């Protein structure tokens, strides 16, 4: 086990080098991810025409939420880890990995971290530029960001997104093509995760239902924690739900891995 853990920095380093080889791809990805913020700004400006608040949000508060979502996405969203894992299973590339004395989950975790670091490196400039430009047009409430509650929620979000991605990808042991499944979950993450609008704009019963699902803890919870819009008790409960869901998906991934390996047929070298 110690030897396995000692190998992780090397896996991380290789993953980082591999990801940075495609830095233009990452830069483009980061630049494009700022586009929804721009669209939100234009749209919500029109919604707020002649109104001070929508729900409990001012225009600046709402745009701060969307801006913070960019940070959450940069820190915690997997890039194409799901498709990489799926390819490794489908094309028999697992063979060489299985021979290594390293648990697959830890191996993928190190690569996920490397991917996030590479993405963060490429995203820093576009996100900072986006914040700067937006703050000139709208008084963003960035000074009041609550990092003490935000950082644990960000870590929880990364863990939850990684574990959910792992579960989805491992379905490749049984299905030839999982892209439809992945995009279906993306759509749920966008709607029920608070990516399209803050979940507290939903009617109360729907908001309550959304907070039971794991998706709310991928985007809305860390973003709202950073914005400081969640009361202390609700934050503690939310963090419990977030890590609870992450733990559940990690256990599910371990189960899927074991069951999948029994079905996996290694072919070729």
């Amino acid at each position, binding site marked *: 086990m110690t030897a396995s853990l000692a190998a992780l920095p090397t896996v991380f380093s290789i993953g980082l080098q591999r990801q940075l080889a*495609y830095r233009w791809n990452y830069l483009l990805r980061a630049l494009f*991810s700022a586009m*929804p913020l721009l669209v939100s700004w234009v749209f919500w400006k029109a919604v707020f*025409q002649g109104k001070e608040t929508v729900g409990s949000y001012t225009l600046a508060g709402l745009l701060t939420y969307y801006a913070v979502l960019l940070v959450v996405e940069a820190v915690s969203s997997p890039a194409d880890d799901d498709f990489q894992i799926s390819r490794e299973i489908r094309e028999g590339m697992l063979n060489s990995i299985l021979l290594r004395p390293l648990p697959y989950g830890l191996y993928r975790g190190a690569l996920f971290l490397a991917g996030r670091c590479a993405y963060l490196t490429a995203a820093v400039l576009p996100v900072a530029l986006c914040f700067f430009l937006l703050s000139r047009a709208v008084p963003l409430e960035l000074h009041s960001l609550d990092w003490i509650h935000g950082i644990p929620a960000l870590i929880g979000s990364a863990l939850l997104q990684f574990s959910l991605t792992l579960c989805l990808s491992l379905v490749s042991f049984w299905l030839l093509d999982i892209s439809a499944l992945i995009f279906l979950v993306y759509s749920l993450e*966008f709607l029920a995760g608070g990516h399209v609008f803050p979940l507290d704009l939903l009617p109360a019963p729907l908001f309550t239902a959304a907070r039971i699902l794991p998706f709310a803890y991928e985007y809305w919870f860390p973003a709202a924690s950073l914005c400081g819009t969640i009361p202390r008790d609700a934050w503690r409960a939310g963090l419990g739900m977030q890590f609870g869901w992450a733990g559940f998906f990690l256990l599910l991934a371990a189960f899927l891995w074991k069951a999948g390996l029994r079905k996996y047929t290694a072919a070729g070298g």
Partner: protein
Amino acid sequence: MVTPFHLLRLWLIQLRYAASRELAFRANFFAWVVVELAWFVLQLAFVGVVYQHVESVAGWSRQEMIVLVATNQLIQQIFTAFLMPGLVKLPELVREGKLDFVLLKPAPSQFLVSTSHLEIGPLANAAIAAVVGILALHDLHITPTLPSLLAYLLLVLAGLLTHYALLLGLVSLTFWIIQAESVLLGYYSIFQVARLPREAATGWFRILFTLVLPLLLVANIPAATLIRGLQPSSMLLFLVTCLSAALGSSFFFHLGLRRYQSASS
């Protein structure tokens, strides 16, 4: 000499081949119908949430906004069915040197790249979008006249051309950037602009997305034609800008093609 008639015949043959390939994976077909439908529901849910708090956005009522969103979905799904599947394969073709096989064929390479694949699933979603749009028009007590319907169809074609221009331009980046898979994310990100009511945009944003990349016109002009009747000046502006964008992206594609180096020789 390749004539438009030959290209049409070639396209129909490619469509037949792609359709039989698609129907070999029926489960995948239904899965993608559900996925695309989920994204459409997501857009409608967003409209529902926003209009819980306001009566109108930039002069568009809830039902009018649904016509706008449905029109955007209709155009996007038709594009996703016929042209997008081929275009998104370009980065892989370039990276692996398989573009050689396309270049060797006696037909325009841009045409072959654009029409090589087909997805049938999005057509089902295009039909659903059309039904949602019709229902919203019914709620608005609007019965479109024949001229406005014909104009709508022409504008939908112009919308398709605009989608095509943007994605062709983006995937052509692959001639300069080795791994250009992010361009698809770029396409989806940039095309969010098309769902905005045109009147919501002001300043440089409006100028950029009206005159340079006419995304603000893609769904707005057809939807407004159905709701408010024919608007000749806006229609003309849209047709001119979408043609310019298509020519510009075609030029960019051919510029990139000159940089292409076969990976196999």
